[in-house]
């Protein structure tokens, strides 16, 4: 049972990380949203599996929250925003795809090198999980800076939050209130982002950050 629990948790975490990589090379907004949904599904599965294998029922609530918010509400809402605002559907990368992938792989290496020696006295599952979630956070940051589109930056931010929740469910004993507050902050951030997206578009008629930056009298 323990071996199976470890392997399954490891695999689900790896899927979340894989989805982070997949987010990095998407060229279209809708496929970006699909990948993000899949990442949220993988995350919810991880939380549920942890709840089952460690017999911690409150993680079911986390899983449910993730499922509802991240996998349903946010993607659907973003989908509607994109349709409603008639945003250009392609994403212009500021960094080449190949280069981004290389950077992503080195970030994963960095987080493994960082986490494994630091947490030598922790259980194997916790260590692996921390390394995975740190990778997801760093990849989300990388996504935010390597894309010019505002929507993709929002998605990058959300995937950072996914990394945090992954860390939270992996570490035994993390109280529910932490996860609740993370979830809540994601919700608030999403609302704020949505309002900002509307306002930016109303004002500048575009969501392409490069064009918005040109309004400030400068450009990349």
């Amino acid at each position: 049972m323990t071996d199976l629990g470890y392997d399954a948790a490891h695999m689900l975490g790896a899927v979340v990380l894989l989805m982070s990589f997949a987010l990095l090379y998407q060229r279209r907004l809708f496929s970006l949203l699909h990948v993000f949904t899949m990442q949220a599904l993988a995350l919810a599965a991880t939380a549920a599996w942890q709840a089952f294998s460690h017999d911690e029922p409150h993680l079911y609530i986390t899983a449910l929250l993730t499922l509802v918010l991240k996998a349903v509400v946010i993607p659907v809402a973003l989908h509607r925003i994109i349709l409603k605002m008639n945003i250009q559907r392609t994403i212009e990368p500021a960094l080449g795809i190949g280069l981004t992938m290389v950077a992503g792989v080195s970030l994963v290496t960095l987080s493994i090198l960082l986490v494994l020696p630091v947490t030598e006295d922790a259980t194997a599952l916790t260590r692996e999980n921390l390394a995975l979630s740190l990778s997801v956070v760093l990849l989300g940051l990388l996504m935010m800076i390597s894309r010019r589109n505002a929507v993709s930056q929002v998605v990058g931010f959300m995937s950072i939050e996914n990394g945090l929740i992954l860390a939270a469910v992996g570490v035994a004993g993390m109280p529910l209130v932490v996860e609740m507050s993370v979830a809540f902050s994601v919700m608030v951030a999403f609302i704020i982002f949505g309002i900002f997206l509307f306002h930016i578009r109303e004002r500048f008629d575009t969501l392409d950050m490069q064009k918005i930056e040109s309004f400030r009298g400068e450009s990349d």
Partner: protein
Amino acid sequence: MGFVVSAIAFLFVMAATGVAARRLPSVPTIVYGGSAAACAIVVLWAAATLAGGGGVAEGWVLPIGLPWIGTHLRADALSAFFLLIVNFGGITASLFGWGYERAHRDSHAGPVLPLFPLFLAAMNMVLIADDAFAFLVSWEFMSLASWLLVLSTHREEGTPRAARLYLIMASFGTACLLLAFGLLATAHGDYSFDAIRAQAPSVSAAAFCVVLVLLGAGSKAGLVPLHVWLPLAHSAAPSHVSALMSGVMTKVAVYAMIRVLFDLLGEPAWWWGGVMLGFGALTAVMGVLYALMQEDVKRLLAYSTVENIGAIVIALGLALVFKASHTPVIAALALTAGLLHVANHSLFKSLLFFTAGAVLTATGSRDLGRLGGLIHRMPTTAVLALIGSAAISALPPLNGFVGEWLLFQAILNGPALPEWSLKIEIAVVGAALALATALAGACFVRFYGIAFLGRPRSRAAGEAAEVGAGMRLGMAVPAALCVALGVLPTPLIRLFEPAVRLMVEAGPFDDRAYQPWFWLAPTSAIGNSYNGLIMLAVIALLSVLLVLVIHRRASDRVRLSIPWGCGFDGPDPAAVTQYTASSFGQPIRRAFGSTVFRARDEVEMPEPGDTRPARLTVRWTDPAWALLFTPVGVAVDRLAERANRLQFMTIRRYLTLMFLALVVLLVMVAVTQR
């Protein structure tokens, strides 16, 4: 202790009165009278405490300030001595200020009345602070109060620049002191002076601390090259405030140096005093050379303060090296010389700034080139200014002479030190101090001769009238003390002996069984002694003889006058042909200024037949600006320019910067964890 705290509280009340009842005509009288009364109480308390053999052993802890720490207050013998100096200066400045304010009612000037008692209170608070936090807060409070007082003349040209420079340098000084106390408090974080004393800092921490204190307190005292703000700010303030800043506030900075270097840091290393000696000598010589180049009376006096601070710092450096070499009796002699010079300088510098204020009131000018002949118009001021000038030039039997005499006695003990480098340095410093003293004499001959002798150089100087009674009284008190302390210095030295004993654990008169009160013969003065009474009698006798001889021999003779006296003769000679301030300074400007200040005289002589006047242009560069402040300013500007670009980046750039910083930090952690 209670007297000091209640006097400070009373000064705050006076400040509030100054704010609340600004419009009432009697308010200046109340505020200045109240300040003088508060200062007088502290003076009496400090004198009684010192005469009783020391300060207060038990301090007070007031429950204000940082929570759980409070404010520690204590006045030991050293504090009591400086309280005496500061508050005596406060009394005379209040007296003079009362008359000055009435003569100088300028509706456009900023408020002085509320700030003057605040400034006095702040200086008192610095002196009784017994923990680093209270000390720093009071110190900054003192800086800000004096800064606001400087700004009260904000409509005069040059004041805004002076005030800005002062603010920058004051912040710099406080920052240095903050770091110094941070080093002293170390890991325990206990900022009370008792706790700092209890644990000796490490060698490197002590070294840093010495440098930081010399920077922090030195910038306030006016150590070259950190002196640049001092002449500008001190001369820009109203005259009684200038006297306080120059005569008294610099002494608070000296107190800070003594407190940290002699008391808090514990056993000194030999090089601390060496550094102080070097900077003291540089300050003394440069200060007086600057003073000789000035045309502005108050600026001249302010540069002369820089010179005197140099002499005091030399005395402190000597005391420190002798303390480090375990010869406390000689250290006591040097520290006595330093403290005596502190007292002397506070007296005659206040006096001279008051005379400058009186001259400014009477003529409306601070420019030496527009004064002259004031001895006929303002006889009292002229006599008092003469006493001040003679005292600051260290002429016997005035108090300046006693201080310098003691200082040279300490310098002559230099060969008693084990380190050869210090022996040689002290010889060089002694020579530099002698040079500075002689130049100070020249400087004050120039000041007095140009301002008070000769003929008026402007209409205003010709029509000047003597100032009012309050101002004259404010000048007469320090002048009388200059004479009294010069004739009888021993009682004052006896009075502050507990302070010296506290700092170097020896007194200046140790191993002398009998020491009469009119005789000054310190133990380590190698058999030399000074008796002011004999000196006074001899000088009086010689003066009488000289006057008699001159009147007998010279006045009765028939005098022949040459028909053309360089255009100076005649019924109403144009005063423009007489010797001017810059002609007086020219020999010294040529001898020293050409190398130190790169001074150049350019004479523009018109062709024969041309009716244009000939023109003499004197150019000189200030080495402190040219070598230190301008390059630093340029560097700061350039850095600010660089940093300014960070303000105008795109969001993605900011995110990238943060991301890179995060990755770099993580890599550092990953590498160092290995």
